[in-house]
């Protein structure tokens, strides 16, 4: 046994796994002595713009100070990253321009890449405490579903709050991979309920079944406005004395409108979360659908049909996404929850074996 490994086993090792989203960061800290886990702490922080706040830096530093053998690992959140089904740089040019990317080959079969400038930017964001490992979501995905990549053509999807990574494996070979951000799309969805409705319409979902709409017919007040009958024909108005009736009608109409607005607000509040989830899931579905269409239509990928989809869910998506994929894309979906920060810690532990 090497001396450095012996010293490492004598000391406590600290592994810090970090998953950064635009508005939050999840951190999991695992303290180990040899192969024994001493302690594990996981925490979520609110941040803005994907930059770690002083509280986040303080939390990381607190645990880094615990041991000289502290390793900080983060999941790469770069937009320009992906994976290609070859380890040859020459062949990889057919799939993506990797001129300014850092690449990592996996078992001489496929390789992941990430934009160098974005990796530098990520390191700069964590420059206060520094980083030891930056992992690709594709490695996490292939490791998480390692038993599923060897069989028939399968779609693997890693869903984070703000990002979505998907790849297609067939008999252990990577065929297609891509990384997307969902943040702009999700924000747009939240801001405009119209888009949600149009999405529902395009899918043929009846939102009324879910009691998501307001039925103005239920408002009795409108039926009780007998004065409206009097206004059916304005030509019947003989004189201006009838204007009093119009004023009365206007008042009662205003009351009715106010009541309906209140009822609408209540309904919005009640179903807001559900609508948001629905729209997020739909947007993710749209991304997956577009990716699959790209895969099916591109001749590079041999027109293979995806039979199964495995979703690693890191943000608690609803059942809608599964339903969308199964019903629209005719793919059997298996969903498994993933604690990304813990997976990163696991990967960091295996990587640290090779560290000095």
């Amino acid at each position, binding site marked *: 046994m090497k001396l450095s490994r012996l010293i490492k086993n004598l000391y406590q090792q600290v592994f810090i796994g970090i998953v950064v989203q635009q508005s939050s960061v999840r951190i999991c800290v695992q303290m180990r002595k040899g192969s024994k886990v001493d302690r594990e702490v996981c925490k979520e922080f609110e941040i803005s713009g994907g930059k770690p706040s002083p509280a986040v830096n303080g939390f990381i530093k607190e645990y880094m100070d615990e041991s000289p053998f502290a390793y900080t690992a983060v999941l790469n959140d770069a937009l320009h990253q992906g994976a290609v089904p070859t380890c040859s740089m020459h062949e990889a040019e057919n799939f993506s321009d990797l001129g300014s990317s850092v690449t990592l080959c996996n078992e001489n079969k496929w390789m992941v890449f990430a934009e160098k400038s974005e990796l530098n930017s990520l390191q700069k964001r964590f420059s206060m405490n520094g*980083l030891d490992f930056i992992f690709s979501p594709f*490695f996490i995905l292939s490791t998480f579903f390692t038993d599923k990549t060897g069989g028939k053509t399968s779609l693997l999807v890693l869903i984070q709050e703000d990002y979505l990574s998907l790849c297609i494996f067939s008999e252990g070979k990577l065929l297609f991979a891509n990384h997307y951000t969902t943040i702009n799309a999700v924000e747009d969805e939240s801001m405009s309920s119209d888009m949600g409705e149009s999405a529902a319409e395009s899918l043929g979902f009846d939102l009324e079944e879910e009691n998501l709409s307001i039925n103005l017919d239920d408002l009795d007040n409108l039926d009780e406005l007998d004065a409206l009958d009097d206004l059916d024909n304005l030509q019947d108005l003989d004189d201006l004395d009838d204007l009093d009736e119009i004023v009365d009608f206007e008042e009662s109409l205003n009351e009715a409108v106010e009541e309906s607005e209140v009822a609408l607000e209540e309904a919005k509040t009640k179903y807001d979360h559900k609508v948001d989830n629905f729209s997020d899931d739909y947007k993710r579905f749209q991304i997956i659908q577009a990716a699959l269409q790209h895969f099916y239509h591109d001749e590079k990928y041999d027109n293979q049909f995806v039979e199964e989809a495995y979703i690693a869910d890191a943000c608690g998506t609803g059942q809608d996404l599964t339903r969308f994929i199964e019903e629209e894309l005719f793919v059997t979906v298996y969903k498994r929850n993933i604690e990304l920060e813990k997976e990163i810690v696991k990967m960091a532990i295996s*990587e640290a074996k090779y560290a000095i």
Partner: protein
Amino acid sequence: MRYSFIKPREKRLISAEFQLLFFFFSITVGMLFASYSYLKIKTIMYESNVETLLAKEETLRQNIVDMHGKIAFIEIEKQHSEGIYTANTVLKESIHNLFDLVPEKITLSQALLKEDELVLYGVTPSKEVYEYLLLAPLRSIFHRSYTSYYAMPNGWYSFVSKNYLDRELAVQ
């Protein structure tokens, strides 16, 4: 297999500040150890020198004792030689005196000088010359004197004179 886009930073057991502190502490300890070693070596060397000097002192002491022995022996020898020298001087004086005693008319042919005895062989013109000129002083020196005369054809006498000193009488 490598999964990370970056290499982990080198982990140090001790911080840079502690390394600096440890460096200076090591220098201090090193200097102390060097001083201790220097003093230790010097002490060992000093002890070794002391041992050598003690051995040398012992040798010298032994030499001094030997010297004293030799000096005592030499002094005895000196005394002995002085005794011999004195005896020789006395003998020389005695012989000188003896020859001074012999008158011109008497000729000695042989003289035997022993410790307590003097034997003279010679020729004398007459017994009287011998008795008056030589025997008288010999009798004053020796306790006993015996003389034998032999007549020679020319009328002279060859004589043999035996003279003895008696030790007991000389001491008294």
